[in-house]
C-alpha cells in the first residue's frame, strides 16, 4: 500500500505509468511482462479518423534526448475502442486515453466516444503535440483556447479529464491555472520541447517534418522545474513526465510535487524499464526512510505535505 495512489478516476497500485505514444496500445510490451504490474497505461493519442502521421524519418537522436515527429499516427477512435481496448481491458491496470484533434469538435467527439468505454478510467487531453500542423500545440500555448477546450471536453467526457501541458510556453503556471479554472481534474506534464537536428552532410533537417518533439533525460531539468512551479500554483494533482528512467527520477518528480509519474522515451532504451522501476521502488523508499511514497510529495517546496 505504500505505493498506492488515488487520483480522480484512478486507483493506481503504484505511481508508474508508461507515457502516451511510447507504449503503443500495450500489445508489444505485454509480450515482455505482465501489464497488470503497472499503475496505469497512457495509450497512444486517438483522433476521430485514422491518421498515418508524418513522413519518415520520424526520429533523430540528440545528446541524451530524442526528437520525434510521429504526427499522431493512430487507427482512429472507433478502431481503438473496437480493436485495442478489449485487449487492454484484460489487465488489472488503469487505462488512460490520450485525446487529440485538429478542431475543438474533433477533441470533443473523440473524448465523448472513448470516455464512454468502461475500460477507460480517465482522459488525457493532448493540447501539446508539437508534430501536427493544426490543433495540438496551438491549443496548448494559449491559455484562453486551452481553457475553452478543457471546458468543452469536460462537458463531453464521462471520465475525469487530465490536461497535458506543453513546455513550449512562457508561463506554465498561467496555463495550469487556466485549465484548472476550466474544470480540469488533473494535469499531466510535460509534453515534448520543440527541437530540430540538421544533417551535416546535407544541411537539411533530419526529420522529414523538419521540427520534432524533444524528450528523454535531456529535458528532465525543465520538467522538474515546471512541475515544481505548477504544483505550488494549483490544487489539482499532477502526473509528471520528462526523462524518467530510474527510481530516483521518479522520486525527483514526487519531491517536486507530482502524485504519479509517466515514463516515455526510456521504454525504447529499455523496454523493461517500468517493471524495473516498480520493483526497485520499495527498497529505495526503505533506504531513504520514506514510508508512503506520497509522504514526500512536494518536499522540495514544503518541509512536509500530508498524504492526500
Amino acid at each position, binding site marked *: 500500500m505504500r505505493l498506492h495512489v488515488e487520483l480522480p478516476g484512478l486507483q493506481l497500485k503504484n505511481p508508474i505509468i508508461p507515457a502516451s*505514444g*511510447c*507504449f*503503443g496500445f500495450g*500489445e*508489444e*510490451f505485454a*509480450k*515482455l511482462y505482465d501489464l497488470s504490474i503497472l499503475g496505469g497505461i497512457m495509450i*497512444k493519442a486517438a483522433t476521430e479518423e*485514422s491518421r*498515418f*502521421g508524418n513522413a*519518415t*524519418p*520520424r*526520429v*533523430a*537522436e*540528440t545528446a*541524451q*534526448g*530524442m526528437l*520525434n515527429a*510521429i504526427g499522431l*499516427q493512430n487507427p482512429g477512435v472507433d478502431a481503438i475502442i473496437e480493436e485495442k481496448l478489449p485487449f487492454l481491458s484484460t489487465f488489472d491496470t488503469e487505462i488512460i486515453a490520450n485525446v487529440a484533434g485538429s478542431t475543438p469538435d474533433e477533441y470533443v467527439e473523440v473524448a465523448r466516444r472513448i470516455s464512454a468505454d468502461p475500460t477507460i478510467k480517465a482522459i488525457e487531453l493532448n493540447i501539446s503535440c508539437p508534430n501536427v500542423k493544426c490543433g495540438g500545440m496551438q491549443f496548448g500555448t494559449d491559455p484562453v483556447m486551452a481553457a475553452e477546450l478543457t471546458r468543452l471536453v469536460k462537458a463531453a467526457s464521462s471520465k475525469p479529464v487530465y490536461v497535458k501541458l506543453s513546455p513550449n510556453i512562457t508561463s506554465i503556471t498561467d496555463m495550469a491555472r487556466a485549465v484548472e479554472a476550466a474544470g480540469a481534474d488533473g494535469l499531466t506534464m510535460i509534453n515534448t520541447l520543440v527541437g530540430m537536428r540538421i544533417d551535416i552532410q546535407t544541411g537539411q533537417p533530419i526529420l522529414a517534418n523538419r521540427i520534432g518533439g524533444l524528450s*528523454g*533525460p535531456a529535458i528532465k531539468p525543465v520538467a522538474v522545474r515546471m512541475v515544481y512551479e505548477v504544483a505550488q500554483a494549483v490544487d489539482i494533482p499532477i502526473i509528471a513526465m520528462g526523462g524518467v528512467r530510474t527510481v530516483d527520477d521518479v522520486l525527483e518528480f514526487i519531491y517536486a510535487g507530482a502524485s504519479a509519474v509517466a515514463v516515455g*522515451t526510456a*521504454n*525504447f*532504451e*529499455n*523496454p*523493461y524499464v517500468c517493471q524495473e522501476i516498480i520493483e526497485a521502488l520499495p527498497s529505495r523508499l526503505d533506504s531513504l526512510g520514506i514510508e508512503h511514497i506520497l509522504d514526500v510529495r512536494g518536499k522540495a517546496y514544503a518541509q512536509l505535505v500530508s498524504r492526500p
Partner: protein
Amino acid sequence: MRRDVTIISNRQIAKATMEMKVRCPGVEVAPGTFFHIKTSGLLRRPLSVANVEGEEVTFLYKVIGEGTSELANKRVGDTLDVLGPLGNGFPLAQYGKRVVLVGGGIGVPPLYYVRRRLHEMGIETIAILGFDSKESVFYEEAFQALGETIITTVDGSHGERGFVTGPLARIDADVLFSCGPEAMLKAVAASPIPERYVSIENRMGCGIGACFACVCKAPEGYVKVCSDGPVFNAEEVLL
C-alpha cells in the same frame, strides 16, 4: 529478449567496415532479423544478423556516426546490451526456385546469412553485391564460396562498374531477396522477377512495434518495419 552478449571479436574488414562476433547462447536467429543494440546514446542501433555459427552471432557494420564508432572501439570481452532477435526475416522455403540476392553497401550483411542457410538447404543462389569502390568491398570470398557472386562498384575499381541493377537485368530468376539503400530497393523492386522481397532499413525508435517511428506506407495503410518486417514482399510496401 533483452540480453547481455559478450564480444568475441571485432575487426576491420574493409574501409570503415567492421565485423563483430558475439556469443549469444540459447537463441534461434532467423536470417533477415536484427538486433537492437545499446550504446551510450539514448536510442538503440539496429544491426542485421550477418551470420550465426553455433552460439556466435556476426554483425557487419559500417562506421558512420557516434553509435557505430563506439561499437568499433569495443574490445573482446566487453558485453553489449541487445534486444533481439527482432522482426521477421526472409522466407527460406524456396525449393526448386532460382533465387537472386541483391545487396548494396550496408545492405549486404543479412544476405550472407540467408545465402548460407539457403545453401545448407541445397537451394542455389546468385548474389549481386554493390559497393562504392574496391576498398569498401567485404566478404567477397565468403560469398563466392556459396555460389556465383557478382560484385559491382560505382567507380569500377573492382568487379563491374556501375550499380547492381546492371547485372540484375541479365539475370533470370524466380525470387529476389534484396537489402540496401532506399534508391536501390526502389529500382530492384521494379524488376520483372516475379517474387521480390526487400529488407528495409528505416530509422527506428523502440524496435518492437510500439512507437510508429519506422513505418513505411503500404497499399493498405502502413507497415511497421521493425515488427512487420524488416523483410517485406515488395508488393506489400510502397517504397
